């Protein structure tokens, strides 16, 4: 009962602070729109392609594409070294009738540019080849006709050799293309990968900071002491805060999801309710962490100092950057990062439509975070009242 009263008071205070509200709802939208513009439509990047063993015409055609330059390498290993050293962004290697394309793929826009340039160049070359083939076949037909006419007159053997050459040239028109990615795969669109994590990050960031600040304010203005001088349970205070910030996080997640789906055209394969649920869990973890850490801060500025320490590392370990190739100790750190689990879960829901049931692991880890931090908070309030 008291928890409800605390919740309605916290909400009342929050909704009267128009600037903070605007920050919570408008700032994420603004940043995400900016990011989607910057990461998705950056088409004027210059791309360098290393080519091995392809025809001169194809090389020239690739070079002719805007913002793309092709450089011939003598063999594949030299080209690979250049790729490793960031001198080139992709390798096109012709092996027999196959094209092996290797992308650095650290920048998905570059990968896309290379693919497009190669495809276009191939089409141009193919058209040239077809033209040639057509010319040849027309010539052959002419020849045939002439021969036929002669044969009609002379009645003699068949033109087997010429037919074969026509078949050969048409075979060459459809070469096999093999794509290899140094990082990620063909589905890696940068913003697409970032979005679920970004969404969680905004929820985490704002709930962590604002709830921490709110409790800090309660402490410094003395309202926490006054609150604790009433028979209220310590747990009621913590639950009251959870309820109010839970509601706020639900609204914030819905706003962010709607923005990304409608404004940015993001495709959500799974259920939006599941996305909201996971973000709510994350928000409650952020809230508990914010409240807990606010007890170690003596001023608003000291609370801000937790941003580089607690909030920013969440991004690095959240799965935005693949940790597979990192040293072991870094992967161990990532296990204690709540955003990793929510990012994993939301990623699966948005991209693969995984139902909540199958995300049992991520959800239960978040739950463990939540329970442990909540207990610590309720116990931590003993610092201010011994019972």
């Amino acid at each position, binding site marked *: *009962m*008291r928890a409800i*009263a*605390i919740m309605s*008071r916290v909400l*009342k*205070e929050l909704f*009267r*602070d128009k600037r903070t509200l605007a920050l919570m709802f408008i700032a994420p939208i603004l940043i995400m729109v900016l990011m989607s513009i910057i990461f998705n439509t950056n088409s004027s990047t210059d791309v360098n392609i290393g080519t091995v063993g392809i025809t001169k015409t194809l090389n020239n055609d690739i070079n002719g594409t805007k913002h793309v330059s092709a450089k011939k390498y003598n063999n594949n290993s030299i080209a690979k070294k250049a790729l490793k050293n960031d001198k080139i962004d992709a390798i096109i290697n012709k092996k027999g009738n196959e094209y092996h394309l290797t992308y650095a793929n650290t920048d998905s826009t570059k990968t896309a540019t290379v693919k497009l340039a190669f495809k276009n160049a191939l089409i141009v070359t193919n058209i040239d080849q077809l033209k040639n083939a057509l010319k040849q076949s027309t010539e052959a037909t002419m020849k045939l006709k002439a021969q036929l006419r002669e044969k009609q007159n002379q009645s003699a053997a068949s033109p087997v050799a010429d037919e074969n050459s026509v078949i050969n040239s048409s075979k060459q028109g459809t070469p096999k293309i093999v794509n290899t990615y140094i990082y990620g795969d063909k589905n890696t669109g940068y913003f697409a990968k970032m979005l679920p994590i970004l969404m969680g990050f905004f929820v985490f960031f704002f709930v962590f900071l604002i709830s921490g600040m709110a409790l800090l304010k309660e402490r410094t*203005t*003395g*309202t926490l*002491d*006054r*609150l*604790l*001088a*009433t*028979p*209220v*349970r310590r747990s009621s205070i913590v639950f009251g805060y959870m309820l109010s910030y839970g509601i706020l996080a639900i609204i914030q997640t819905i706003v962010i999801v709607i923005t990304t789906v409608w404004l940015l055209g993001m495709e959500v394969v799974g259920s939006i309710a599941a996305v909201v649920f996971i973000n709510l869990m994350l928000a409650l973890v952020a809230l508990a962490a914010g409240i807990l850490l606010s007890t170690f801060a003596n001023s608003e500025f000291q609370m801000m100092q937790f941003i580089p320490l607690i909030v920013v590392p969440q991004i690095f370990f959240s799965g935005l950057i693949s940790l597979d190739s990192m040293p072991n100790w870094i992967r161990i750190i990532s296990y204690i990062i709540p955003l990793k689990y929510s990012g994993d879960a939301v990623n699966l829901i948005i991209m693969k439509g995984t139902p909540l049931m199958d995300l049992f692991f991520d959800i239960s880890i978040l739950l463990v975070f939540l329970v442990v931090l909540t207990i610590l908070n309720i116990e931590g309030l003993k610092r*201010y*009242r*011994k*019972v």
Partner: protein
Amino acid sequence: MVKKIIDLQHLVKAFGEQTVLKDINLTVRTGEIVGLIGPSGAGKSTVIKIALGMELASGGSAKVFGTKMPSRMLLGQIGYMAQTDALYMSLSGKENLKFFGLMKGIKRRILPVAIKHVTEVVDLTDDLEKKVSGYSGGMMRRLSLAIALLGNPKLLILDEPTVGIDPALRRQIWAELGRIRDAGHSILITTHVMDEAEQVDRVALLLDGKVMAFDEPVALKNEYKVNSIEDVFLKAEGVE
């Protein structure tokens, strides 16, 4: 029967190495105002925090209403006002009162009546709908007192209630405290305004973690052979 509402016996409180309270013996009986005076840093707030159960005594016993502190349920019968106003600035006066009323466990049904009563006492009826951020310092102090008075608690613990209040209002508040006492309630009040110490029923002189003297103001003045509590205070400090 005069009951001991607050009963502190041989209270000791240490924070790490530092012993703030060495030997505190203090009682507050039914229907009296006890003043706690002492220089800042003498441990007045610590005494109050132990009486409220916010801090644990390192030694000795602290009983309120005959129950050993800390006890959460007892807090419903204690009205507490801290040195700071401790109000929610973005809420109105009424919303502050309502919130703390619910926290004290006052039933929603009788809450409006309780709020009406305490606002009349502190003369805030006209400004109740205004946001606290628009209040003057004196109004905030009065609202803070009104919150402490909510629920008609048997014991009031007031930490420097008249700091930053103009003389007319201070007199008004003291008159109200007198009425509350006459209604049979007990009040423990800290102050460093010496002429306020003259108005209490008994005054405790807190110095260096000990209660140096604890008696009626008149008796103290006789004992120390001086004319004011301020002189008692100075003399006690000089002796020490």
